[in-house]
């Protein structure tokens, strides 16, 4: 049970991080001048593209796991009632 709880927390934390990076890199594509100057050129349009497109699969996986945990929790609660 402890492992499950750790996995749950890890999924939520990772999902939050991935979503934030996904949004920032999205802006890095559409508003690259702003993001490039804010990051001192570190997050260029090309880098944003690469990160953004490589994050799609991890984002979907984390989202599915996150939903599965939430649904599982709800079902468990209902069964107890």
């Amino acid at each position: 049970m402890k492992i499950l709880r750790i996995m749950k927390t890890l999924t939520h934390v990772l999902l939050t991080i991935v979503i934030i990076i996904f949004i920032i890199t999205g802006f890095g594509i559409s508003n690259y001048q702003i993001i490039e100057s804010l990051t001192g050129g570190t997050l260029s349009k090309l880098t944003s593209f690469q990160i953004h497109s490589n994050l799609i699969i991890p984002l979907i996986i984390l989202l599915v796991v996150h939903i599965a945990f939430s649904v599982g929790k709800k079902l468990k609660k209902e069964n107890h009632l």
Partner: protein
Amino acid sequence: MKNTPSMIFLLLSIQILLMVSFTGCLEQQNIQLDAVEIREYKGEKLSSVNDFRENSIKGPQQINKSTYQLKITGRVDAPKNYTYDDIINNFQYYKKVVTLDCVEGWSVKILWEGFLVKDLISEAQPDPSAKILIFKAYDGYTTSFPINYTTDNNILLAYKMNNATLPVERGFPFQLVAESKWGYKWIKWVTEIELSDNLNYKGYWESRGYSNSGDQNESFIGK
């Protein structure tokens, strides 16, 4: 009940994120044109001049038509300096419906009207050593193509889109219609075409990691 504050916080966060994300989509452009743009050509539905996203490196460039010059330089026997009227009045124009696909994910299908690049450069008598064309724009943007790409594919330098003169925002006086290439190869505000033998030349985005060929059937991320 004990989760109510966190639920409110979550919903507010989602709402803010959605608002920020959709701000760009809701931006409305209304570009002034010198004629009513057509939205259908030979049964084909066309996009609007307003459907483009502004993503140039320094924003729209104001070019004065009366002082404008298109230079043909480099490995040529007779360098040329065309004025806007020289080009409009002396070259045969052609029409083509071509879709521009941007690496950002949007695309527009437009009826382009313009002049063949091969006609413009042939007047300058290219040297046989010339292998590539380097296009230079008013804002400092550059991109390049093998000469045979422009000759074999009848590539246009457009001065009209959807039957209206190119507006400032879309590259007045001329935009290259680089069909089958990613949008970053469609250079706007063209002021110079240099013929060169430097096969390793890289333009603005190409020198920042984008593919030099810009072929749409390949990834735009250069190897």
